[in-house]
């Protein structure tokens, strides 16, 4: 895993070298093992390397054919062994053992469409000197990030926004419409970021920059088409197929020249991932998990049970609310976007533990909930539809309590209130976003803290309409369950789960996550399953549970699903956080930033500090406002530098030109 950066411009070599060195240095945490630059003609490519495959000869930027092709590559091509064999059959000769060189040969052999042949997680740029063009691509699910901007005639790209912002031509401004999106959907819509004029290449997209023009296209998408057959025989066959695919997905994800560990959260998905690894690799596996001091959030009982069942060597990091508060500014620095939850912070501490244990790679269960129907929001939408078909029923609303057995306040709620909160209205049934309306409505309450200036700037802007305009043509024809799945898979997964809560907090400590459930063959297989095989009545991940029977502890298979949650607002009331919270949320700082109203922000903070009861909306507001304010201090005003860059790097650059 690595960090990439580059510039295509007519600026002098000296200027580009200086800028690119700064950019690559900014990405040191992603690749502390080696740095490299290549500058030739109008192209300048940079790389910071975390060595995982071919430790001795995989240096980058890498070239082919006497420098006619140059690449800077971040990620892994898990089927590179098979692809290399194919290419050798066609006469290609290789000088390294790395997957990066395979990518260059694929480009040479097949042109830009070659990405369809790759199974992996990547973002990269190839400079084609013959055609004088830059080819960029990002993996299907959006595991690895790729950002870009244009400044004057310069095209600038990098793995992280902070690397782009150190280029002297790039301005630093928040994108208020993106902020409006984050405060509704939890992440900016594809191609936007929290920063104005800084874009991201969406998942499953490639692009070519030639003569100053960028052409972008989508090369892959999931399609929800299935033949309804939930006979016992068909279910058994599907479970066998799923296991076969997952085993192969895990097998190729174990390819590395360094030891590979796994996360064990106490839930089904990580237990399945661990079961797959222990079937494939005979040596003792190292597993890692987060435990919480708050018993309502803690899953360590199941983590220990799973570790004992699989016989792994297990390490746990215990995390308190104060621990989260202490590292939150560092986490914001790495996430580069406002968030509504603190959930990324414990994962940041977990990846630190992994790194301190001398591991660079972990396999995790990410993606299973999206593709195999595990999220509560799918269940919630199903129940709401059921209620909407007979709104006068006194019994149907009681099902809403079954949705969230782990949430005390919901359990104490009356059916009449639940019905109102979950927007059960027959007229909403035709809304293609039916499943997500309650979540978006709740999140959007936080926008009441926006200042008058921000409200004025956003007058006439409708983020839901922008979401609608980006939907695929087939979306309206899909089954409602699949519509909800698509919203999670195409938006929240790359925009938040795999970035703020994934790549960023893992790479902050130079740790690479690999996700067997997000192997595109598994994703395509899941999209061809009928919704009934994903959720049978209200039994989530039905097929996966069927497949996992006997593979994982029975207690984990039968326990009610508990989503990963962390202490939110409470993290900022005591301990180390108090000092910076007072500073960042002071009336003066909030007024200067101009995004939020100082008075209400002060009252919100006072509510938390008073010890009075708080609610979910309060938690989201405090975390959202605080993360936005830290982001402004760190990236716009540059008045706050994060306390610790996790990895320090002092070696000189290897430069070729």
């Amino acid at each position, binding site marked *: 895993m690595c960090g990439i950066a580059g510039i295509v411009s007519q600026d002098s070599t000296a200027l580009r070298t200086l800028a690119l060195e700064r950019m690559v240095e900014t990405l040191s945490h992603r690749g502390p093992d080696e740095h490299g630059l290549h500058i030739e003609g109008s192209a300048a490519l940079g790389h910071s390397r975390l060595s995982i495959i071919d430790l001795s000869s995989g240096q980058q930027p890498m070239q082919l054919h006497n420098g006619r092709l140059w690449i800077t590559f971040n990620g892994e091509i898990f089927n590179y062994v098979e692809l290399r064999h194919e290419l050798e059959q066609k006469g290609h000769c290789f000088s390294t053992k790395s997957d990066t060189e395979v990518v260059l040969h694929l480009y040479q052999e097949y042109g830009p469409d070659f990405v369809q042949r790759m199974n992996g997680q990547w973002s990269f740029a190839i400079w084609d000197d013959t055609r004088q063009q830059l080819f960029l691509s990002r993996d299907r699910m959006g595991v690895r990030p790729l950002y870009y901007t244009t400044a004057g005639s310069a095209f600038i790209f990098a793995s992280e926004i902070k690397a782009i912002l150190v280029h002297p031509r790039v301005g630093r401004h928040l994108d208020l419409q993106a902020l409006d999106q984050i405060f509704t959907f939890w992440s900016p819509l594809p191609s936007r970021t929290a920063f104005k004029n800084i874009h991201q290449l969406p998942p499953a997209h490639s692009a070519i920059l030639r003569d100053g023009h960028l052409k972008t296209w989508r090369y892959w998408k999931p399609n929800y088409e299935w033949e309804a057959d939930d006979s016992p025989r068909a279910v058994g066959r599907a479970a066998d197929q799923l296991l076969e695919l997952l085993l192969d997905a895990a097998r190729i994800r174990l390819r590395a020249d360094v030891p590979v560990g796994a996360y064990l959260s106490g839930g089904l998905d990580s237990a399945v991932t661990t079961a797959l690894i222990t079937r494939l690799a005979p040596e003792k596996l190292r597993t890692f998990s987060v435990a919480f001091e708050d018993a309502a959030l803690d899953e360590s009982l199941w983590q220990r049970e799973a570790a004992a069942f699989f016989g792994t060597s297990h390490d746990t990091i215990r995390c308190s609310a104060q621990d989260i508060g202490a590292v939150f500014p560092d986490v914001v620095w790495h996430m580069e976007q406002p968030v509504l939850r603190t959930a990324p912070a414990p994962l940041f501490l977990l990846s630190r533990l992994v790194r301190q244990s001398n591991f660079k790679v972990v396999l995790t269960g990410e993606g299973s909930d999206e593709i195999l129907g595990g999220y509560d929001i799918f269940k919630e939408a199903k129940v709401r539809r059921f209620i909407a078909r007979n709104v006068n029923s006194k019994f149907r609303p009681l099902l809403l309590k079954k949705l969230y057995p782990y949430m005390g*306040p*919901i359990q*104490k*709620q*009356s059916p*009449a*209130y*639940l019905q*109102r*909160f979950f927007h059960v209205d027959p007229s909403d049934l035709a809304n293609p976003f039916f499943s997500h309306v309650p979540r978006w*409505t*709740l999140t*959007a*309450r936080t926008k*009441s*803290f926006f200042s008058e200036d921000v409200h004025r700037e956003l007058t006439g802007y409708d983020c839901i309409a922008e979401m609608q305009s980006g939907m695929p043509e087939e979306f309206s024809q899909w089954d409602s369950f699949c519509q909800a799945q698509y919203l999670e898979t195409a938006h929240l997964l790359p925009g938040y789960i795999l970035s703020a809560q994934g790549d960023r907090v893992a790479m902050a400590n130079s740790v690479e996550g690999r996700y067997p459930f997000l192997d595109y063959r598994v994703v395509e297989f899941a999209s061809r399953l009928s919704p009934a095989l994903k959720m049978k009545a209200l039994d989530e991940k039905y097929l996966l549970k069927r497949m996992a029977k006997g593979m994982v502890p029975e207690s984990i298979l039968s326990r009610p699903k508990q989503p990963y949650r962390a202490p939110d607002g409470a993290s900022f009331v005591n301990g180390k956080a108090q000092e910076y919270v007072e500073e960042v949320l002071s009336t003066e700082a909030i007024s200067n930033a101009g995004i939020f*109203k100082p*008075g*209400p*922000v002060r*009252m*919100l903070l006072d*509510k938390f500090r008073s010890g*009075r*009861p*708080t*609610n*979910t*909306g309060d938690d989201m507001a405090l975390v959202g406002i605080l993360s936005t304010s830290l982001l402004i201090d760190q990236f716009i005003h540059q008045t706050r530098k994060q306390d610790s860059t996790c990895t320090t790097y002092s070696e000189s650059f290897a430069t070729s030109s």
Partner: protein
Amino acid sequence: MYDLQRELRDFIVTNFMFGEGAGLADSDSFISKGVIDSTGVLELVMHIEETYHVQVKDNELVPENLDSVDNLVAFLSRKLAQKETPADAELVAASQA
């Protein structure tokens, strides 16, 4: 004079709207206006029980009783009227004045 309406409204505006209550009419639904969420209702109930020393029964947890300032005042007035202490009677009388 004791003003139950103002007191309840102040609590809603301070606790759930962080002082930004100008757009909230006393008849507005808290849910429709996005003032409270599903967990906020329990905050409201705790406040009523602790401040006015009444007990809200499970079957009283309905929007008709709690989902606007007007509904709250009517509901709480009924609850207080059921109490018999002199202090409570004073509150009831004041709220209906």
